[in-house]
C-alpha cells in the first residue's frame, strides 16, 4: 500500500514559533518522500543544531539529530557505508555556513550522492537572534544591538565553488515548488544543495514574509504588491551542464554564481546549477573497490558463528621471517 504524507509524520509536538518558515520545509520533505514512495526504513534525515535541528524528530524515518555544524560528516559516513540509503541532511545557515563551513566545502569536493537542505533565515533563532553568515553587512535585525559588521556569504556561490553538483534555491512559503526542488535534489546523482529562504518571524524583521511578497513595493497601475521571488524555470535560464567541456562547465558555473547574486527586488528561485558529469563519490569508490555498491560496508558479513571470516594469512605471510 502506498504511503501517504501522513505516514511520514511523527506525533512529536512541534515547538517552532507560529508562522515559522520551517514548517513549510518539513511539510515539503514529507510530501517529497511520499510522492517518491521511498520506504521509510530506507531513508534517514540527519540534522544539525538549532530550530532546524529538530526537523528529524518530526519526520517518521530514521532521524539523527547531530551536533552544531557536524551534520554533513555524520550524514556522509552513513551514506558511504550504505549507498542504498536515501540520505537528507538539514540544518540552519549558521550551522552549515558558519561553524560547519569547513565540512560544507569538503562535502562539495567529495560529491557524495545525497541532499543537503539549508534553512536560511539570516539569524540564529534558538539563541535569540544573533546575525548568521547570510545576514547582509550593515543590516540590523531587531535583536541585534548594532548593525551586522560581517559581509554575507553567498550559499549558492560557495556550493558551486566547493564542488556541489546541484545547487538550488527555494522559498519555504511556496511548498509545492519547494517539494519539486527537493525531489529534483534527491533524484540528482551527486551532492545536491538546496538553500531555502525561510523567514524567521521572531527575530528577522527585515526579510519577512511581507518583504518577500513585496508588500512594500506596490505596483502603481495595479495597486498590487510586486513579489520579490521569481522562478528560474519561468525564464530561459538553463542550469544543466550538458557535455563534458571546460567552456560549457565554466559558463554554467559562472552563470549560476552571477544569478545567485541577484537580490533585493528580484530574487531567483529554482535550480541554478546541475552537473551529473562529475562522478559522485560512490562511483569513485567503485574504481577502487569494484563490488562496493553490491557489497558495501553495511552489508558485509564479518563473522560466522562468532568467528571472523576475514582472511589475514597472506598479510601475515608477507611479514614472516
Amino acid at each position, binding site marked *: 500500500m502506498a504511503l501517504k504524507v501522513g505516514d511520514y509524520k511523527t506525533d512529536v509536538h512541534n515547538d517552532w514559533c507560529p508562522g515559522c518558515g520551517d514548517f513549510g520545509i518539513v511539510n515539503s520533505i514529507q510530501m517529497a518522500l511520499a510522492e517518491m514512495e521511498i520506504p521509510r526504513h530506507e531513508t534517514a534525515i540527519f540534522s544539525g543544531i538549532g530550530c532546524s535541528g529538530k526537523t528529524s524528530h518530526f519526520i517518521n524515518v*530514521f532521524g539523527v539529530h547531530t551536533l552544531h555544524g557536524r551534520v554533513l560528516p*555524520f550524514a556522509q559516513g552513513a551514506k558511504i557505508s550504505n549507498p542504498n*540509503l536515501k540520505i537528507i541532511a538539514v540544518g540552519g545557515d549558521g550551522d552549515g555556513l558558519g561553524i560547519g563551513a569547513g565540512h560544507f566545502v569538503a562535502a562539495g569536493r567529495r560529491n557524495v550522492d545525497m541532499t543537503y537542505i539549508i534553512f536560511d533565515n539570516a539569524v540564529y533563532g534558538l539563541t535569540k537572534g544573533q546575525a548568521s553568515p547570510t545576514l547582509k553587512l550593515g543590516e540590523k535585525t531587531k535583536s541585534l544591538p548594532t548593525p551586522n559588521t560581517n559581509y554575507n556569504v553567498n550559499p549558492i556561490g560557495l556550493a558551486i565553488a566547493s564542488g556541489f553538483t546541484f545547487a538550488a534555491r527555494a522559498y519555504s512559503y511556496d511548498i509545492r515548488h519547494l517539494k519539486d526542488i527537493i525531489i529534483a535534489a534527491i533524484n540528482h546523482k551527486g551532492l545536491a544543495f538546496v538553500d531555502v529562504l525561510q523567514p524567521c518571524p521572531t527575530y528577522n524583521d527585515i526579510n519577512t514574509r511581507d518583504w518577500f511578497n513585496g508588500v512594500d513595493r506596490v505596483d502603481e497601475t495595479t495597486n498590487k504588491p510586486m513579489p520579490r521571488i521569481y522562478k528560474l524555470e519561468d525564464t530561459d535560464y538553463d542550469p544543466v551542464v550538458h557535455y563534458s567541456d571546460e567552456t560549457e562547465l565554466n559558463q554554467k558555473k559562472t552563470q549560476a554564481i552571477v544569478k545567485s547574486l541577484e537580490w533585493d527586488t528580484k530574487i531567483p528561485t529554482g535550480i541554478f546549477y546541475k552537473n551529473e558529469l562529475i562522478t559522485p563519490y560512490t562511483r569513485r569508490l567503485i574504481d577502487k573497490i569494484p563490488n562496493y555498491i553490491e557489497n558495501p*560496508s*553495511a552489508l558485509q558479513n564479518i563473522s560466522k558463528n562468532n*568467528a571472523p*571470516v576475514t582472511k589475514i594469512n597472506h598479510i601475515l605471510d608477507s611479514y614472516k621471517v
Partner: protein
Amino acid sequence: MFALIVVNVINVNARYLMLQQVNEVVSDFTWMIGGPQGSGVETAANIFSQVFSKMGYQIFGKREYYSNIKGEHSYFAVRVSDKQIRSSIKGTNMLIAFDAETIFRHANDVLENGIIIYDSTLENIKVSDVITFDNDFKERMEGFLKSNNKENTIKGILELASERGASIHSVSFRSLLFELSEKIENPRIKTMIRMFNVLGVSLSLGLLMIPTEKLTESINSIFSKKKAIADMNVSAANFAYNYAAAKFGSTDFKFNINEIKENTLLVQGYYGTSIGKIIAGCRFQSYYPITPATDESNFLETNEILEINEDRPGSTLVIQTEDEISAIGMAIGSSLTGVRSATCTSGPGFVLMIECLSWAGINEVPVVITFYQRSGPSTGLPTRHGQDDLLCAINSGVGEFPRIVYASGNVSDSFYDTANVFNYADVFQVPVIHMMDKFIASSVTTCQRFDETKVNIDRGKLLDEPPSNAYKRFEHTADGLSPRSKIGLENGIFWNTGDESDVEGHISEDPVNRVEMMDKRQSRLDYILEKIPESEQIVKHSDGEFCVVSWGSTQGPILDAIDMLKNEGINIGFVEIKLLHPFPKELLKKSFSNSKTIIDVEANYTGQLGSIIKQNLEKDPDYYILKYTGRPMTCTELYDTLKKIVNNNAEKREVLTYGA
C-alpha cells in the same frame, strides 16, 4: 643536571657487560645507524633487522626522528638477542655514521668494547659546522669537549670514545662509491650518496662476519618490487661488505646462526591494530593525517580489498576527512548503519573529537578511537613518545557518559586487544578509546604470528532481523542495554539526538526520564567491570613485595628490567592495567595483596595512572618512575632505578632522561 643528558658518558651496568665477554657468542647486541631524514636510515635498519631475524635472532628496533621531511637528524637503534627482548637498552655496541651530527650525538652512546664505523671525510668538522643542531645541544657539546680537553671536532669526540675502549673504523663513503662505480663500470653510482645507508649497514655486517647471503637475501626482499634498484644495492652491499671484512680486521663479537622459531613475524608497531581491525571486521575508518597515527590508516587503505572465507571480497572504506571532527562524525554515521567503524588519531586530533565523542556517549553508539599518543602539551614533541593523554582520554567530554579506555602494552597484544575493543564497543554500546603510542608505533620487533583463531566477534544486541514489536531504541531492560537497530533495518526506525531523549530517541527534558536515562547509561560502567574477563582488565605478570604498576608501552622495558633483576635474585612484581576506565579498583587491590611497595611507571610528568590509583585505593604509590623527554624508556634505565628503590636509595619521584 638535565642539561647534561645527552653528553653524559654512559655507565654501563655490570650485568649488561657480562653479556659482552670477549670471544664468546654474543647474546645481546645493539646496533645503531643515524643520518639526516631522507637518507635511508630506516631502510638500513630494516636490512639489519631482516638479516638478524633470518639468523634466528629476536629483534627490537626503535626509530627516532624530528618533525621534519628532510635533513634533520634521525636514527634507528636495533637490538638483537637470542633471548626474548622487548625493549632497547641504554647505549649501543655499534654505531654507523655517515654524517657528523650522528657522531656528535651518539658517540657517547657507544659502550665499552663497542665499535664505530664512520665516514673519514668528516674528521675535521666542528660542532658549529653542523647547522641542524639546536643551540642548546651545541653549547652542551662544546662545553663537554672542552671540559674533557678535546678539540671541538669529530676527531675530538672520537678520541674520547676510543679512550673508553671503542674500536673505531674510518672509511670514505664517497671513495667506496667511486671504487664501486669503476669496478662495475657504472658511472652513475659515483655520486649516489643515497646509497650511503646500504654501504653503512653492509660495512657493519662485513666487520661482524655475518654470512653474506643473508645480506643479499634481505636486500632483495626489501627491494623486491624494483629489480634494478635491488641489483645495484646488492653490488654496493657486497662491495662494502668485502671492504670491511678485508680492511677492518676482526672483532670480538661473534654470532651464531640459530634456528628461526616457527611462526616468527618481523613487524612494525602499528601492524597490530591495523591487522586487528581487519580481522575484527572494522569496515570503515575515517581519519585526518597526524603523526604517529596515520600509518595505520595507510595500512588499511593499502589492504582495502579483503579476502573473505567462502564469500565475495569484502572491503574497508578508508576515508581521509577534512579534520578530526569529521573523522569521528563519519565513523559515528557509519556505525549507525551497523558497520564496525573506527578512527585513528593522536592527542591534538583526539581533543577535537570530544564533542562528537560525547554525542556517541549519550546515543550509545559503538565506535572505536585508536589513540596513538605522542608527547604534548599542545603539539608538544610531534614525533616523540609520551603517555600524557590518559586523563584526557578518561575525562574529556561534555557531561557524564560511559566510555571504555583500554591500553595495549605491545604490538602483539594490540592485535588481540583491537579485536576485543570492537566487541566491548558493540556489547556495551559505548565508545572505546584504545590507547597506543609512538613508542609502539615506530618500533620494529619480532613476535609470534598473530593467531586469528583466538579472535571472536560478539556484536552484542545489534539486530540482524527486523524487530516484530514497536521498536524503541532506548527501551529500558534488565541489564540496561537496549536492542540496537541500524539505519536501513525495516521496522527498526529510531531517532538519535545529542539532547537528552526518551526511549524512542526524541528530545525530552522531563526530570523523571532524565534520571532514568542517566541511570541506564551510567549503570554500564559497573556492568563493564562485571562482564569483561579479569584477565583482560589487569595482567599480573609477576608478584613481589616490590611491585611495579603501569599501563601501555612501558610493558616491554619493565618486563626486561624485571628479568635482569631476577637473574640477580631480586623478584619484582608487575601489574599491567589494561582497562583504565572504568577502573578495576577491586581487582587491583587483589593484585597488590602480596606487595608492600608500589612503584608507578609512566612516560609522563605527573604520574597520571598514579593519581587514579591514589583516588581509587586511597593510597599514593610509594615511588614514581617517570620519563618525559619524549624518548621511550630503556630496560637498563628501569633496571638501575628499580635497583635503587630496592636498595632504599631512591627518591619518591625518579625521572629518567636517557636518549638523544
